[in-house]
């Protein structure tokens, strides 16, 4: 992962990145390498952007790094889901009615043949969890991106343009935040019929308002700052000031929010499919698997527990990582876990 500077360093109108919040470690810019005995003028003093500082703090955070590794493993599992089929010899939707079900037609517990047991149709739960990871991660990332994109644009416009635009957009934000999200989302999906696109759109459509509200608040105070005035006196257009001057300053809170939004979105997607509005069967999907398992939780605990553990591990890893990201950008903030 590399940290890309959010603006062109040669751009004289761009805000200095030191305007960003983390001021706590500002002296670190000037801290020489330990053990360097040369006089100060002779040393090479490395300039570190707040982005680099944040990354360095994040890298020292053991919990966040472990979570990152777990997230990486889940991503690998999703990408190489076909490999699990190759190893076990079980395609995700193949129903092993002879070997995968007990004589009474019940799911089989974990064995050397089916590592995490089978489901009610005699399918391999391990392989289906691997394929289900694709849906969760895809929806989690896509819906979060959409949410953040809409939220930032609306929040920027409302906060920067002010006046009637702001009043209108602020009311719109209030309106969307007052809609009972889950109810309407379920109703919508039931009308349009479930699909990956619909799930992403529905989640994005109802979640942007919270981002917009945060961004608007930040922009309201940023637009009064001197660097905006400077940019305007140099003749910069509104659009340029919004996207080139102000935007980099709101990226930090937006990144923090986005990293904590991913696990929420993953749970919402799983909830929709638990309620029967996920992807159409037989596509493997964690929420749908748990929903199927509900009828068998007294006879086949593995059917419910393993997809549930996969879901829980994913959301836990993302939450711990997101918390680390928050701490890296704002070391004074309250940590949830250390």
């Amino acid at each position, binding site marked *: 992962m590399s940290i890309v500077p959010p603006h062109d360093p040669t751009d004289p109108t761009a805000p200095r990145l030191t305007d960003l919040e983390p001021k706590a470690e500002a002296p670190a810019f000037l801290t020489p390498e330990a053990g360097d005995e040369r006089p100060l003028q002779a040393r090479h003093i490395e300039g570190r952007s707040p982005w680099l500082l944040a990354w360095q703090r994040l890298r020292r955070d053991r919990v966040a790094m472990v979570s990152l590794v777990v997230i990486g493993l889940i991503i690998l599992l999703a990408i190489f889901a076909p490999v699990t089929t190759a190893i076990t010899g079980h395609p995700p939707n193949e129903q092993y009615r002879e070997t995968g079900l007990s004589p009474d037609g019940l799911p089989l517990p974990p064995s050397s043949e089916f590592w995490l047991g089978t489901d009610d149709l005699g399918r391999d739960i391990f392989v289906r969890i691997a394929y289900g990871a694709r849906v969760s991660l895809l929806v989690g990332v896509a819906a979060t991106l959409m949410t953040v994109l809409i939220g930032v644009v609306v929040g920027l416009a409302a906060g920067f343009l002010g006046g009637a635009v702001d009043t209108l957009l602020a009311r719109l934000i209030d309106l969307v935040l007052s809609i009972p999200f889950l109810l309407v989302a379920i109703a919508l999906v039931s009308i349009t019929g479930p699909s990956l696109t619909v799930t992403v759109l529905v989640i994005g459509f109802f979640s942007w308002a919270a981002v917009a509200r945060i961004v608007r608040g930040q922009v309201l105070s940023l637009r009064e700052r001197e660097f905006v005035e400077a940019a305007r006196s140099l003749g910069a257009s509104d659009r340029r000031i919004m996207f080139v001057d102000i935007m980099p300053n709101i990226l930090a809170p937006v990144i923090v929010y986005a990293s904590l939004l991913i696990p929420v979105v993953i749970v919402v997607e799983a909830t929709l499919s*638990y309620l029967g509005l996920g992807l159409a069967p037989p596509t493997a999907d964690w929420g749908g698997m748990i929903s199927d398992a509900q009828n068998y939780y007294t006879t086949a605990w593995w059917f419910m527990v393993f997809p549930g553990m996969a879901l829980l591990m994913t959301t836990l890893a993302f939450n711990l990582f997101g918390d680390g990201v928050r701490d890296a950008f704002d070391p004074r903030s309250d940590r949830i876990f250390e």
Partner: protein
Amino acid sequence: MARFLFRRLALGLLIMWLISLAVFALFFIAPNDVARTLAGRQATPETVALISARLGLDQPIWKQYLDFLGKAIHGDLGYDYYHQVPVTEIMAQALPITLSLVAGGAIIWLVMGVFNGVVSAIRPRSFVDRSLTAFALFFYSMPTFFLGLLLLYFLYYQLTVAGYPIFPPGGYAPLSDGFWPWLQHMILPWFTLALVSAATYTRLTRASMLEVLGEDYVRTARAKGIRESRVITRHALRSAMTPIVTQFGIDVGALVGGVVVTETVFSLPGLGKTSIDAINQQDLPVIIGIVLFASLAVVVANIVVDIFYAVLDPRVRLH
């Protein structure tokens, strides 16, 4: 204050009207074939048209909307498509169940969250603080339906198998059946709801308490020789509660529409379960009624929180 109240109520009404418009448009513009479903497979086009006319579905949409709005203002939300029962009656039956769930769950998570938050804040970064935050984060990451199923597996199934049939596998027993059966049916749903939500409150209380404990007046209180337990409960917690009450109001308002999952896991026939059933059979009047009611809960909760804020902090009234 009167002006602030008036403006806040007017805004709430405007939002409710917009939501009714949006919801109505959403569900009525979408292609639906309720009349055909109701008429049965062998119905002639005439029968379908007749049913359509009886339900008022042959009217132009704007006329249907005005009709609906006119009646809704007088508390009439129409009749359900299948049994011709008034929607308000269906909702009145489901509401006590949802309220039992929300009230019990909210009390548990508030007490648990605030208690854990205060304990965490008293000794920040101690072992207790870390354990409590780990506990909170674990349940915060837990999907509600998975937690519900785990509770059912361990506390209903395993306990019953072991010979202690304390908890039922789901369903609802009204208070008129007695307090104990009602409690037995509600405890697991309450904890499912509460454990997931308590995390936010633990964290909020901890942050708020840490801030307040650093204030001068807390130091003054200690300097006066007041017992530490009294400083924490009377002096610090009291002012630390403001953000918590705000969040609580918003969450409880949102819960009326958010208990869908818990009600589904435990087959509680409350508003959430009723709406899922209505959605599955395209029973539009019921869906619209419940969605509007749930939105009303959010809007009212927001107004109450704003008023609470305005009473506490006069500066808010100006904005």
